[in-house]
């Protein structure tokens, strides 16, 4: 029973590739359908955020990138953490509404509902991987490239799995508990400030407090990106955390979703 559900979850996008593909394309294109700015809007928001944070923290608070990261500009230091975060935050932030938006479809048409959280996660990741790649190309030209960069797709994929698990869980629970919509957007903001993205973790004085950040998987992801990209080191401890966390979240989230999806029709 447990494994049939898991199997259903894992192979859905493969088995229903056509549907998955159409849904993804539809959601991706729909983001800027009927707007004049179109595709550009996908970049405007993250860039605007980066400019704001760079101004506040880099200029007003005079935060400088630390010697550990080879004297990199603060903006670059921040962007490496911020772009992957943005994909995560967008996917998780939208997750409570995913099934509610498609209520008409779910109650009227029989199709593998579990593709919806997958699509809901793939679309923001596809969108923001573009920005992240542009940044990497820029950094490679600046001479940052090293062989450890080959790990980046793996880590990015693990972050995707971690997000997908959360999205599946939240979207399914929100069908029964609509309050999650408000709670999740609040939690995402809190989570953002609890992850050293716009500040270096070394700003935290107490050693013990810094250890606590290891409980935040997003910190490990961000730290992996930074150390690999900027100084070519592989923080093994962070990797040891995210590897099991990503897979467990993905499987538990998916299992929960498939487990309770049959009740969606009654409630939506």
């Amino acid at each position, binding site marked *: 029973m447990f494994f049939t559900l898991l199997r259903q979850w894992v192979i859905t996008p493969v088995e229903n590739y056509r549907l998955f593909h*159409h849904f993804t394309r539809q959601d991706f294109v729909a983001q800027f359908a009927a707007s004049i700015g179109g595709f550009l809007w996908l970049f405007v928001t993250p860039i605007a955020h980066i400019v704001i944070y760079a101004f506040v923290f880099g200029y007003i608070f005079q935060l400088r990138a630390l010697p550990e990261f080879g004297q990199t500009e603060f903006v670059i230091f921040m962007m490496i953490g911020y772009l992957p975060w943005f994909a995560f935050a967008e996917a998780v932030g939208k997750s409570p509404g995913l099934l509610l938006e498609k209520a008409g479809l779910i109650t*009227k048409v029989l199709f593998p509902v579990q593709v919806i959280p997958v699509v809901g996660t793939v679309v923001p990741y596809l969108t923001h991987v573009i920005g992240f790649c542009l940044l990497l190309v820029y950094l490679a030209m600046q001479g940052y490239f090293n062989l450890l960069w080959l790990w980046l797709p793996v880590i990015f994929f693990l972050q995707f799995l971690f997000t997908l698990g959360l999205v599946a869980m939240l979207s399914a629970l929100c069908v029964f508990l609509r309050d999650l919509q408000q709670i999740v957007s609040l939690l995402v903001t809190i989570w953002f400030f609890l992850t050293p993205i716009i500040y270096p973790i070394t700003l935290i004085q107490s050693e013990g407090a810094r250890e606590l950040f290891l409980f935040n998987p997003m910190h490990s992801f961000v730290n992996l990106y930074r150390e690999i990209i900027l100084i070519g080191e592989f923080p093994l401890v962070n990797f040891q955390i995210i590897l099991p966390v990503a897979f467990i979240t993905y499987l538990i989230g998916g299992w929960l979703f498939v487990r309770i999806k049959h009740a969606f029709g*009654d409630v939506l």
Partner: protein
Amino acid sequence: MTRVSVKNLHKDFKIYERPQDRLSELILRRQKHTVFHALSDISFAVQEGKSLGIIGVNGAGKSTLLKLLAGTLQPTGGDIEIRGQVAALLELGAGFHPEFTGRKNIYLNASLLGVPDKNIIELENDIIEFSELEYFIDRPVKTYSSGMYVRLAFSIATMARPDILVIDEALSVGDLAFQKKCVQRMNEFIDEQKTMVFCSHSMFHVQELCDTAIWLDKGQIKEMGDSDKVVGHYEDFCNSKKVYHSISEDIPKEEGASTETEIKIQDCRINSLSVKSPEGKELDSLTPLADVHLEMEVEVLVEGFEGNFGFAFMKSAEEPVASFLTTDIDQIHKGPFKKGDIFTVSLTIKNFAMRVGDFYVLGGLADKTGLLWYETKFSKSLHVEPNKGVGPIIMNSEWSINQG
């Protein structure tokens, strides 16, 4: 082969007064809901090449039953066994994305129905042609009228050639021309040995399209059988309910006999309705200016019945073209009749004046005042064989040319 078989099907909905009750029940395991029995003890089977109609008043459980068949709801108890691929049209255009063009939506919708893309490429033109949307297919569907929406959705669902087609009220939105096309398509469907489950408030369509019908009432099967019969009884029930609603409230009800009294109130019944030539042959089509003979057999159910009769030519269920009533005619015998009397009301139309089109004949029974209609009955569709000329009507006429 049995395509759809349903056994002892039950569906309950849990009703929570407040949303937090659902949560507290999950956590505290204390029952906080009341149960609503949407369907109870439903059993039926549909064979290959047959079609089933589901009728009943609003809230009888028709849509719930269709959703269970389509698989978007799970039964609380009982079994549903379905052999073959199902396409369900529960809400037309449920899978459409309003910002995308009709053409893109064809692909999206087809992938929802599980049709591979390469089949759709072949079918794309057929779908567009059938939906009559050639000029609009590359425009966003949000600009479509509701009729256009339905046409596209119906075309996709039927073009996909599922083994079992489940349709909820599909025909009510389209115009008459498209309704006719849909009926044709559905008939083709049945000819191809496919199976159909169909729910509608259009009794005419149910009779026309379905072999058997189920009358649902308060979540239970009230009657199941030959669609003509079930529809007839259902119409009886609706008519009597509509007309005598206020009266039946005044009558003191005996316990448990409420439905019985509602049916007994009916004073008379139309047993049959036919359209014949003056020679007595049943007609499928009419010739302009020919004479037509309309007949209905009436059975009297109460002692001393007095009434009025009427016929009408109808373009659709709401659109009369011509009507004939006995309310102002005194020369004919309008009662009183004895209980159990069976008599035939006939009307001869001289020089049938319509030149083109399809019509139904409607027969009706009314009370003495001509205001309360007990029952109306539609004939099958009659086609007019057009003769040479233009315009919708023709008149009996005589030419002469006088020189002088």
